């Protein structure tokens, strides 16, 4: 029995030595065929050409840049030209996606290593919840057929995770799916992977340090450097990252005073999305800090200036990577803000989800002062691989489900 090799390993195969390779016939050549596996292609000289699309196993030896069948050729499946169509799974996965999926696995491991060695507990909280989060601009996906009243897929696991903080654990993290109805684009998928973590006896400051170190550790592990390829251009992620306050960004980058924009929330986000975000984190990662209080429903207000909240976002190459804050732990204040969000949702004609009384009860019970952060895992992978579209880092994006 000749052990099986991957196509990519054949470049190192010494002359005369035999190799066993299995893969798909992707092209008929003048003197043989092209065989492909998940690592690459090789041309094989042979007098018989199996049907296009068939999987075969061959035992062959080196012949110049290719192979020559010397012993056996087994045809393992029927041929089909279905794979030659642009919408085939083969076509969708073979190009950039397969290498990106390998790096996805490596990034997951790097993230887990980072938090495990920091002493955080990895948790898995439910995806189906009775109160999906009242963020004014997020819509949840309803789950039908549940037995105990209405349920939704969460838009973020924060209520459930914060309840675990009542234990006073030093920290928890979760790498899981979050679901947001109607979000689809270059940086958005309705089902995406979120990395969310919390540290007790901590705050936004610590979350920013975690973010810098995590991204730097992942960059080192996956690219061997502290400069990520980015989506449009390289981004230096060497800590510490620069910081810019929201009011300063409005004035310096957009040329408008925040107080002139502020009562109009839609205009705030329009300027942020159109004129500020595209300029942030170009060449170097940056934190946008000190959000106006109304834009931070779950964050603690700054003790120095209550018009602002201890909320931040990180931007790399114009892409919002994460959103974190010093958690609001005052149950009464939290209830007031959630009620306000409910009213706001009603005004905008959006579904009004119930208050999560168990979450509010946990705050009542008491959790230590904490910091929390939610980071778009797929976006980090895009910045690491240089993928231009979130679909390129997913096995089966929603468009192909």
């Amino acid at each position, binding site marked *: 029995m000749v052990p099986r090799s991957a196509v990519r390993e054949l470049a190192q195969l010494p002359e005369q030595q035999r190799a066993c390779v299995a893969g798909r016939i992707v092209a008929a050549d003048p003197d043989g065929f*092209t065989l492909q596996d998940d690592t690459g292609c090789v041309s094989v000289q042979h007098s018989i050409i199996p049907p296009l699309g068939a999987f075969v196993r061959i035992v062959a030896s080196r012949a110049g840049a290719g192979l020559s069948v010397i012993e056996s050729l087994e045809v393992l499946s029927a041929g089909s030209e279905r794979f030659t169509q642009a919408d085939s799974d083969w076509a969708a996965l073979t190009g950039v996606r397969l290498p990106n999926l390998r790096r996805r696995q490596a990034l997951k491991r790097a993230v887990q290593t980072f938090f495990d060695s920091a002493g955080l507990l990895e948790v898995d909280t439910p995806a189906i919840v009775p109160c999906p989060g009242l963020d004014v601009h997020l819509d949840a996906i309803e789950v039908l057929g549940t037995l105990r009243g209405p349920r939704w897929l969460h838009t973020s696991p924060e209520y459930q995770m914060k309840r675990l903080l009542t234990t006073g654990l030093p920290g928890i993290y979760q790498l899981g799916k979050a679901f947001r109805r109607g979000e689809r684009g270059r940086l958005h998928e309705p089902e995406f992977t979120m990395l969310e973590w919390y540290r007790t006896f901590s705050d936004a400051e610590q979350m920013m340090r975690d973010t810098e170190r995590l991204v730097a550790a992942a960059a080192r592990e996956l690219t061997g450097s502290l400069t990520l390829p980015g989506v449009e251009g390289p981004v230096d992620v060497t800590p510490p990252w620069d910081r810019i306050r929201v009011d300063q960004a409005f004035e310096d980058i957009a040329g408008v005073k925040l107080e002139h924009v502020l009562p109009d929330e839609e205009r705030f986000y329009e300027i942020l999305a159109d004129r500020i975000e595209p300029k942030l984190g170009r060449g170097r990662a940056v934190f946008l800090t000190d959000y106006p209080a109304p834009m931070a429903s779950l964050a603690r207000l700054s003790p120095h200036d209550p018009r602002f909240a201890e909320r931040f976002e990180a931007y790399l190459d114009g892409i919002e990577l994460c959103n974190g804050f010093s958690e609001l732990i005052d149950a009464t204040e939290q209830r007031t803000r959630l009620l306000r969000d409910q009213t706001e949702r009603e005004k905008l004609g959006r579904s009004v989800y119930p208050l999560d009384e168990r979450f509010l009860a946990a705050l009542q019970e008491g959790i230590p002062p904490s910091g929390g952060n939610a980071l778009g895992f797929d976006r980090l992978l895009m910045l690491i691989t240089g993928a231009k579209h979130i679909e390129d880092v997913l096995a089966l994006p929603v468009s192909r489900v």
Partner: protein
Amino acid sequence: MYDTSDIKKNLKIKLDGVPFTVVEVQFVKPGKGNAFTRTKLRNMFTGAVIERTFRSNEKLEPADLEERQMQFLYKEGDGFVFMDTASYDQLNLSAEQLGDNRWYLIDGTNVDVLFYNEKPIGVTPPTFVELKVLRTEPGFKGDTSGGAMKPATMETGLEVAVPLFINEGETLKIDTRTGGYSERVNKR
């Protein structure tokens, strides 16, 4: 009226009385903020491309264009000549007016010519066109880096990424919405 969720590539809309074709759409949403649709729009009179961002509650006016089925006859200098198959009337469109659609025209192609106030301003090609491969490297050249696609030039000059198994002279089905390879048309 269109909603912003209707915006997709090649949609024709009217802004301040001028018809535009959508050439690029991007969903933009700051994490906790409201969603926007950022677009690139091509002015159908001048061919100039502008950027425009729409709020999610904005309504867009459809461009009231009239479509007439015509046949592409031939290229003449910088212009493209079309003929109304019923009246035999002929008209000329420039490369700028056709934009990327000029890459899908071979003699005899039936297209919808778009008229705005009786003036021809562009065409809608069929969703799929069949074009011959003029030039592409032969199949596979011995490196094992694994790329499944290679560049090819079609008979109209269109550049397309095609799978390794495609050879010169073969006919491919091209998706005119994306400008991409769709499938190989079996030689009859």
